[in-house]
């Protein structure tokens, strides 16, 4: 059985039992992702599922050249990567000369295909592998792409909040100085202005600072 890592945070990272068969470790998964952080999150998920052969490539490599050396069983690529067309050409050529390749995305998996496209990931099966086995990989990817998107969103919000906090403090100090009022009163003044104008407190604070710079 696989242990769950310390940082694991619950049901979002549930690992289907089907993955835990020992044979999974022999599959080689190629992961092409623009975002090194997201790639790390996915790779972590693959390893937890028992896929120890994970190769990561960045987008600027010429995939066609590298893919023959790597010889993967499954390829996962994020949709932001413009090289999907190159990858598909490689598959088409190999299909003719080398070995069977199935695209995971097809009509029989409409729901999962939709989920994958909406999450921003695409999967290709290279070795004529049974689709059910790869389905779990794709499910995990979809979940983790969403987790990553949520984390990125939270990070952006935190950054904005932090920036706002600094701006609000500066504006408050300005008001206290120019109007000779206390901290609480200055803050209340800005909040009233924000409510009246249906604006964010951070925007009011920025306006106060801009006004003071002009005057």
């Amino acid at each position, binding site marked *: 059985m696989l242990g769950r890592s310390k940082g694991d945070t619950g049901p979002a990272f549930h690992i289907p039992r089907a993955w835990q068969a020992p044979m999974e470790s022999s599959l080689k998964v190629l992961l092409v992702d623009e975002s090194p952080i997201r790639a790390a999150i996915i790779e972590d998920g693959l390893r937890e599922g028992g896929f120890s052969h994970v190769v990561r490539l960045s987008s600027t490599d010429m995939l066609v050249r590298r893919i023959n050396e790597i010889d993967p069983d499954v390829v996962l690529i994020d949709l932001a990567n413009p*090289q999907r067309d190159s990858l598909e050409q490689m598959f088409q050529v190999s299909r003719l000369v080398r070995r069977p390749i199935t695209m995971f995305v097809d009509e029989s998996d409409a729901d999962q295909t939709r989920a994958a496209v*909406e999450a921003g990931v695409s999967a290709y099966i290279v070795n004529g592998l049974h689709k059910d086995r790869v389905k779990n990989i794709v499910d995990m990817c979809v979940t983790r792409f969403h987790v990553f998107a949520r984390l990125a969103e939270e990070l952006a919000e935190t950054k904005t909040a932090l920036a706002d906090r600094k701006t609000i403090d500066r504006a408050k100090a300005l008001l206290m100085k120019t109007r000779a009022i206390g901290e609480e009163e200055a803050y209340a003044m800005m909040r009233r202005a924000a409510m009246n104008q249906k604006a964010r407190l951070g925007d009011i604070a920025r306006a106060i600072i801009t006004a003071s710079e002009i005057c």
Partner: protein
Amino acid sequence: MSAPLNIGFLPLTDAAPLIAAVDFGFAQAEGLAITLHRDVSWANLRDRLMVGQYDAAHMLAPLALAASLGVGQAKCPLRAPFLLNLNGNGITLSKRLLEDFAAIGCDPLTDWMTAARGLADVVRARQATGASRLTLATVHLFSAHTYLLRRFLRVGGLDPDGDVELVVAPPPFMVDFMDRGLIDGFCVGSPWNSLAVDRGRGVLVALGCEVLADVPEKVLAMPAQGRLTRDGEGVALLRALGQACVFVADPANRADLTQAMSRPDRLDCPAEVIARTLSGRLALDQHRALRERADFIRFAGPGLHRPDGCAPWIVEQMVEAGQISDRAGTLEAAETVFAADLALAAGL
């Protein structure tokens, strides 16, 4: 007005009719609201059509057929009721390769035929010395670019499947791959040849329309069972695009159009470069004269948008390139994909 139509495109000059339809009011005049989505690969456009994220998309004409058949990819039944443009491609060779041309006393900028024959001589000379095969790139396996490049090679006397290696690379990476010696030349659409020439990385040796005239290039593609094939909206969209194409083809609108197209959420490319490709006055290298062809890229003309005429040529190219073997069956499928019914209903 119903929910906006979501239409995907790649940042290429021939997305002009889609951009013009939205930014210059042709869609609105037909009662349509359109949200344009810039994307990064043809595979993405195809998949987003398949899952219903897009109602229609800018698409390589041959790919609309290949996707509908499921050749080399997941099967995604599409309709391509509107041909957006003819031509617009070019073949660029790397600066490094110019030394090989100089060595055999050939100037590839003389004309495209000289370049094609010269390239064959360069390849033969390399074969004689045991040098590695040249690698040439196109933007997609199922594209006019692939078929034009194959024709260019054959005219010169080369076997496209044996004498060179043909690969696919994304246009924004072409120049970088050329710099790194990974590819020696490419056949791409506008404005990518011009950008490579401007950066001094390659020379434009052939315009697509010189290698073969009036080649079907991009279509508007839509899911066979989508919102646009079901009701009157599709016809309205085609009428709007027909109007937009007339606007795009008129030089009087060029300044406004290229300004709109240059925006970061559209092509994100200098307006001057787009204007050059639209005008058909192409710089071949950084120093020398332009080559000028009025039909370098064509957006308007009698019957130009009717897609049915392009089916036989595309099927023939797919056979020649070894992409399909069932000519008759493919032709039958192509007649459905490129059916003219919507275009005729739109008065095109």
